[in-house]
């Protein structure tokens, strides 16, 4: 073992397995038809939501869907930035950030375009649900921090943000639950985890105002067999409906607990 042989290999280790390494996809469904984490293909992850996570904010919410953990706080309505042109209706300003330790490789998401993409998508998903005319000339800020990225991050951020908006008392037409789905070969897996998203051929995110039966955002990526699309959309909408119930009961609980 001589130091002269100075061809030290570049350290090739990450404490958590590096998900960017390509390899043979593992089978995402067991022969009995259950997924890696034991769920059925059309089953959502266990979800936990709570409003009032950040006291400094006008409204806030924390959401935990399986391994995905996000926190959203809402400030305003407050004065718009001076540089912005006059606007008769209110503005919605969004920002999504990843914590550096939220991903398997440190700082992976914040270096890429993901934060910017999510920021734009969050804005578009919420814009039509918020009654912007109720706070003219002012801005409502929606800030999200992804504490742990575990798949379906954007969908969780959208759902959590609409809870935070409700907590802040911003007038909305409806809550905006969002659900993601991954398509692998002939299977559609609802509310996919990180591992499932990684091996999936295609993905879908649906954000919907369920009591109005309106979709605020629908994105599809990757490869989709045309026969699966409508089935997937229906699955997402059903899941949105269930999520909306959960969000409503959670908001009600907080109000009751706060009133006592």
């Amino acid at each position, binding site marked *: 073992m001589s130091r002269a042989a100075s061809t*030290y290999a570049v350290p090739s280790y990450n404490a958590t397995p590096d998900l960017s390494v390509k390899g043979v996809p593992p089978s995402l469904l067991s022969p009995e038809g259950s997924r890696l984490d034991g769920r059925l293909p059309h089953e959502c992850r266990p979800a936990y939501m709570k409003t009032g996570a950040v006291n400094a904010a006008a409204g806030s919410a924390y959401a935990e869907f399986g391994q995905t953990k996000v926190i959203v706080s809402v400030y305003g309505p407050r004065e718009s930035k001076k540089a912005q042109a006059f606007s008769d209706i209110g503005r919605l300003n969004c920002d999504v950030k990843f914590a550096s330790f939220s991903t398997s490789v440190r700082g992976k998401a914040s270096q890429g375009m993901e934060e910017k993409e999510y920021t734009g998508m969050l804005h578009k998903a919420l814009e039509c649900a918020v009654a912007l005319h109720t706070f003219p000339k002012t801005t409502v800020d929606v800030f999200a921090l992804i504490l742990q990225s575990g798949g379906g991050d954007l969908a969780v951020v959208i759902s959590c943000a609409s809870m935070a908006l409700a907590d802040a008392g911003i007038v909305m037409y409806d809550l905006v639950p969002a659900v993601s789905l991954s398509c692998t070969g002939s299977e559609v897996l609802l509310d996919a985890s990180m591992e499932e998203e990684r091996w999936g051929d295609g993905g879908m995110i649906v954000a919907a105002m369920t009591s109005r039966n309106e979709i605020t955002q629908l994105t599809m990526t990757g490869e989709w067999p045309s026969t699966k699309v409508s089935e997937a959309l229906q699955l997402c909408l059903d899941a949105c409906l269930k999520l909306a119930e959960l969000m409503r009961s959670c908001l009600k609980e907080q109000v009751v607990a706060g009133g006592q």
Partner: protein
Amino acid sequence: MEVEAFKRLYPLPFYERYLDSSVRPDGRPLGRARPTSVSLGAVSTADGSALVKIGNTTMLAGVKLEVMVPSQETPDQGSITVDFQMPPICSPLVRPGRPVEAASVISEQLSNVLTSSELVNLSELCIAPGKAAWMAYLDVYCLDADGSLLDTALLASVAALAHLQLPAVSVSEEGRVYPVSSSTSGDVSMEGAETSIKVKGNSISPRRRLKLGAAPFALTCMVHKKHLLADPCAEEETLLQCSITITMNQMGRLVSFYKPGGAVPATTAIVKECISLARRRAREVQQILKEALEDHIESPSLMQTD
């Protein structure tokens, strides 16, 4: 005049009335800190993490490990990089895109305290001398800013480092580092296709916790006229005249003392009182941290990963 209106119009007189009767608007006596909680392992993508609350102030600290080649000067030492972040979620004063001045000040202070307190012996982070060592990135995120940020950030950092486990790895002769499944230790690496050739020369370092030195704990105090208030909230920090931050390690030794000017000069009597408050607080916080660690080790979730 109504109480709320009086408070808004004359915040300082409102406050001073409380101080004169030695109590604070939130009901605390002047020398008492807010309720403190520590929970470990909040983020599973991090190698060590802790969520700490002091009153409303909430911080999440996470440690990520990477392997590095140690420098020539210190071939048997790893390194720690400390960063403190205030994302816009934490306070109405923070807007996206603009870095906060306070955040970089606290980041620097945090880094200084952790280095000077010798909490982590950098040789502990060595994997194979001259070939590989751990590079620990400690990132502290402020989730809710309500005063005493340094105190909370420091406690979160210490807790995250106490929760940190260095994974089991095997090192080949060239200094390549491979993960080893901890369940059956050495045997598993033989099955791995990559490592099978080099197994004989490999040295295996087992999964272990970091051995920590005496942990530092900080207490911020506000001086206002002749009153001394421990652990101020954000409102108190903006309202009152001057702050003193004292860092004390668990042995009761002074690690750092920070009084950034301010309108009021501190007398030696005040300084002494601050130090005794900080000493008492250090004992209190140490107990909270100890309980959190014991709870965590007892809980079954950790047993599986051990």
